[in-house]
Each structure stands twice: as C-alpha cells, then as structure tokens.
C-alpha cells in the first residue's frame, strides 16, 4: 500500500472513531465539573428529570446547572426557597443554595410543559 493510501485510510478511521471519542470524552470532562450537578429537564412523556434523584450533603453548597432539553421548563425547590423561573428550550440556568436540613425534598417544574406537567417531579436527598 502506498503512503497516500495509508494516510487516507488513517484519516477515514480517525474521523469514524475520533468524532464519537471526542464527543463522549468532552461530555465526560464536563460532567467532572467540581461541585456542579448537571440536571436535564424533559417532559414526563420523554422521561422527566435526569437525574430524578439528586443526593447532596447538608451544609455544603449545591450548584445545579439545569438544561431544558425539549420544551421550556422551570425549576422549583420550595423547601429551600429556590426558583429558577422559566428556562427556555435549549438554554441552561444555574441555581445555587445550601441545604440546612437533612431529608428528602421534592422539586418541580414550574412552567407548564405538557399535559403531565404536574407529574414532573424529582427528589433532592440531603444526607446529614
């Protein structure tokens, strides 16, 4: 095989494997952000909150980055007085708070997003 042919083959393989590799490693890198939890909001029909259960520690500052993936959503965690307002589709909002009590607290979507909007609920677990 000539050098040109080898280079072309290498390029093709690099494209076919490199694109997925780049995408997934970039995403993994972003997930490793210290003290930031990435939360995706989807309608109940599409699977709801992801993750639907967020575990944090009492007294430690929590930073949530919330992405509204399919339609406009909201984020409301009434027990700690947190409300992000409307998060338009495709955008993210960041909320920060420090849980001062342990327990399980529900969080909701605050902007009507589907007929099952009222069921779009997740749980924040604060460990002592």
């Amino acid at each position, binding site marked *: 095989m*000539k050098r*040109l*042919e080898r280079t*072309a*083959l290498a*390029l*093709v393989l690099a*494209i*076919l494997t490199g*694109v*997925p590799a780049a*995408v997934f490693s*970039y*995403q993994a890198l*972003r997930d490793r952000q210290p003290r930031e939890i*990435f939360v*995706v909001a989807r309608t109940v029909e*599409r699977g709801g909150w992801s993750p639907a259960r967020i575990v944090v520690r009492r007294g430690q500052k929590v930073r949530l*980055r919330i*992405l509204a*993936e*399919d*339609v*406009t959503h909201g984020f409301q965690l009434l027990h700690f007085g947190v409300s992000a307002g*409307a998060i*338009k*589709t*495709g*955008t*993210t909002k960041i909320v920060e708070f420090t849980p001062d009590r342990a327990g399980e607290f529900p969080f909701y979507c605050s*902007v*009507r*997003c*589907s*007929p099952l*909007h009222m069921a779009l609920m997740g749980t924040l677990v604060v460990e002592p």
Partner: protein
Amino acid sequence: MRRRLAGIALLVALGGGFLLFTGFFVHPRGGREVEVPLTVQKFAFSPPRISVEAGDRVTFRIRSLDITHGFSVEGRGIDATVLPGREVRVTVPAEHPGKIRYRCSVICGPLHPFMVGEIVVRPNRWPLWGGGLALVVGLLASAAVGRPGPRRDLLGWRPLRWLLTRRPFQFALIAPNLLAFTLIVLAGLVGTATGAMNFSTIFVWLAWWGLLVLFLIPLAGRAWCAMCPIPAPGEWLARRAIVERSERPFGLGWAWPKRLQNLWPAFGGLLLLVLFGLIVTTRPLVTALLLLGLALVALATHLLFERRVFCRYLCPVGGLLGVYSMAASLELRQRDLDVCRECRGKACFRGGEGYPCPTFQFPGGGMTRNTYCLLCTECLKACPYDNLALSLRPFGADLLVARGRRADEAWIALLLLGTALAHSVIKLGPWGWIKSWANLEGGPEFLLYAALFLGTVLVALPALHLLTAWLSRTVAGARRVKLGKLFVDYAYALIPLSLAAWMAFTLAVVLPNLSYIPRVLSDPLGWGWDLFGTRETTWKWVPLGVLPWAQLALLLVGLWGSIRVGRSIVEDALGDAGAVRRGLAPLVIFLVAIAWGFLALYLG
C-alpha cells in the same frame, strides 16, 4: 380590423373587471386599532391568518393553550415569550401592504420551525402584480426565439485541470463531508430529540439542503454526488482503495438487473421520503437512521453489484439531482467527438488510468445530458487524449436534448413539482391542521393526509399535465403524435419552474431559521455545550425584507426558463410553425398557472 378591435375591447373589459374584482381601486381605510385574540398551541396560531388594512395597528392578545411559546415577527425586532397561563399583548404596526409573517420563537417541539402565522395587509397586490408579471413573462418567453448559447471550458485554466486530475481530489471533497456525516449520525442517535437543537436535523435539512438547492444544483448539477460520503465506504471497499487506482476489485460485481435499470427505484424512495417529509426533517433520530440506512444499502450494493449502481438507480436524492442537474449551468462532455470515435480503448467507460465511469456513462460520445454524471472526475483521469471539457453553459441546456427522454425521469419531474407545492403548503403555510396530520399524530389523520398528498402529487397534477398535453395535441391538430410521448416530453419543460419553486421554498425555510446553524455548531447534541459561545445566537441581520422579491424573481426566471424549454420541446414534437404556435398555448397557460399558484401561496 373590427374583429381585432372587438378583441382588444374585450381584453380591456376583462382586465378592468379583473382589477375591479380584485379590489385594485379600493383605497386603504387604514389607521384603525385592531385587537385580535390569538391562541397558540402546538404547532399553530389561531386564527392562523388575519386581514387588516395598511396603516392599521394590530394588537394581539396572545394566550398559550399548552406550553411556552414565543411570538416574533419576521424581519422586525418584535419578540415576546408566551408563558402558559399569562396573556401577552404585542402590537404590530401594519404599515405596508403585503404579508407579515410571524413565528414561534421559543422551541416548543419538533414542528417549531414551521409554526407560523400570517397577517395579510390589504390591499395586497403582490399576487396581482405577480400574476400580471407571470403573464407578461409567459408571452415574452413564448415569443422569443432560442439559440444555442456558447460553452466555456473551465479546464482551459491549468490549475483547475491539474487539481481535478489529481487522484486524491475526490477524497479531499469527501473527507470533510464524512466528518459531518459521522457527527450527524452520532448526534441523531444519541443527541437531543428536539430537531431545532440537534446538529443532524439542522445540518442536513437546513444547511445541506439550502446549499444544495440554492447553489450546488443550479450551478454545478450533480456535483454533490462527487463529494457525498454515503456511498464512499462501500466504494472504497469494493475498489479496495480510497485514493489510488486499484485493479483488484472486491465483491461479487454482479450486473444490475435489467428490469431495474431505470429511475423507478429512486422514484419510490423519493416518494416515501417526501410523503414522510415533515417527520424526516424534524426528527434527529429519523434523520440519522435514514442516512445510516442509505449508507448501509449503498455498502451492500457495492459489495454485490458493479460500480455505483446505488447512485445510478437507487438513491432518492440521486433521482432528484439527476433530473434537476439538466438545468444546471455546468456540464462534463467530450471535447472533440472525432477523437472519441477513433479511440480504441474507451478508457472513460472501461477504465484505464482512472476508474471506469461509476454510472456506466460514456463521456466519449453518447453522453448528451447531465442526468447520470456524478462529476466524480474519473474520466478526466482516464482519458489518454485529454479530450474532456468541463464547461459553463446556458442554464437548462440538457432539457432541449430530445434523445434519451424517459418516463421515469418525467415522473420524477412531476413528483418534484407536486412536492414543492405540497411542502410549501405544509411547511410554510399557517394551517396547523395539515401540519399535525402530516406529523403522524393520529393514524386516520395521517392516512387522510397521505391520500391528499398522493392524490395531489400522483393523480391531480399528472392529470392536469396530461390534459395540457392532450389540449396541445388537439389544438395543434397533430393527431399522429403519441400522447404518451408528449406527456413525457412536456414534463421536461416543468423542470426549470419546479427547481425555481424549490429555491423559493428553500429560501423561505432557510433565511428565517439561519440562526440555528451557529447554535447547533456550538451545541451539536443539545447537551448544553457552548463550544463557540454562539449557543443562543439570534441573527438580526438576515434581510428578510428581500424574501418576497427574491421569491418573485426566482419564480419568474423559472417560468421564463420553462417556457423557453417548452417552446423548443413543442417545436421538436409538432414540427410546423402554425401547429407549434397553437400547441404551445396550453403549455404556456399551464406553466403560468403553476407559477401564479406559487406566487399566490407565497405572497398572497
């Protein structure tokens, strides 16, 4: 003399009546405050279309019945978010007659990019003027005498010839597209299901389609086929080489079945593609599976059959490109026919320094149309006599070539014209019901939609076309001409107009939605990335005001082209001058009516 005077008087009376009837002399009342309650719901505004007078100020009281939507007026700074349960008031001044389009500006689901509403500002004379201009263009074009235009060989420019005869040239075109293809498939499979935020849907149906229809097809015919990544892996495997010329093919190398040596397989694929068009173009997963499926079929055909039979007979996009490439202003042909006649080896067809023509074309003589030329440049590399020319030529030159006209091509031309009309209604129109029918939201509704779509595209339009051919034959008094032949021949006259209609449609889809391109570049999978900081771009500089003018111009140019081609086809078919004059009339009326239909739809 008196008969002529009477005729003129009748024309004037008819024209005046027409103007009166269409409200041409009505003065705008204007200046009112109009209040309109507007409800929004996936994926339509209700009422979808209102009419006001120029000078009015329209205040919408907007309420959402389901989820969060937006309200933005095309080409103006007006933009509001409509949260459910809260009424929003937006005032739109309607200064000038014409049509004001507004659209949803907060992504609300798959059909969001096509969620539009219209304010018709009276007296809207666009359709009237457009129709008049179409008539004038029709009359002028049918009277004009065509003559073959000059060709200019681009290969006379040495650097271009050098570039095109390098072996890695085609690979250099394919590689970047393979990169995009990989990302498109990946994004479609694992990225967000929201089409407007996924690289796959936006890059295929906005960027690629836009570039293809607006530039690549009219200027360079099937040039896309030279750089298409879909058949590339199969071809590389079958050739056992990516760049070099290899003599050891891999695979079974069967001949393609004779019964399928036509465009009917591509016609079938294209029909399915356009029938499910609204689903395919708004769902990333479907887009990815479609592309992947095409690539797998291409791979299989390359391993089983010889050459690029996938591109020649199967690819639905290939069928579309093949038919429209005849209208392109670029062609690859032999330079001197005598050299080809003396040539013993026929390296362009049988292979030599370059691969044999992948679509069984014979550039040395015989190839008189672009339809099946992929512009892959192998014949340039193969020909030992440098006897090929890549020439600029007048648009639509191949449509005048009588030899090789076929029913399958004619039906693709009809299908494409019908689809341009149907998709303009579905995607650009304000009518929500047909969008939800086409969106597979309910079984019976979708069946109704399918019946409507197929009835229009496969029955009504071809029937009108047949009627045109029959009328043309009858008034020309040319009974000896076969009706089937006229049906096929006249279909080629539709091609310039239907390409122009696709361009007008595409412009109206692409321009208002252009901002999605920087957005998905920054966040290709809809995972909240922001690679280039352009995730929330809204381009305001896009000149949407030129849209109606551009659509009008495109359709008139297309009509002009169609009638010129039509005239030449009628001359070939009917022969003597009197018969041609009479036989041309029905075709011109048909073409003007189609052009006017598009104008009325876009601007009315």
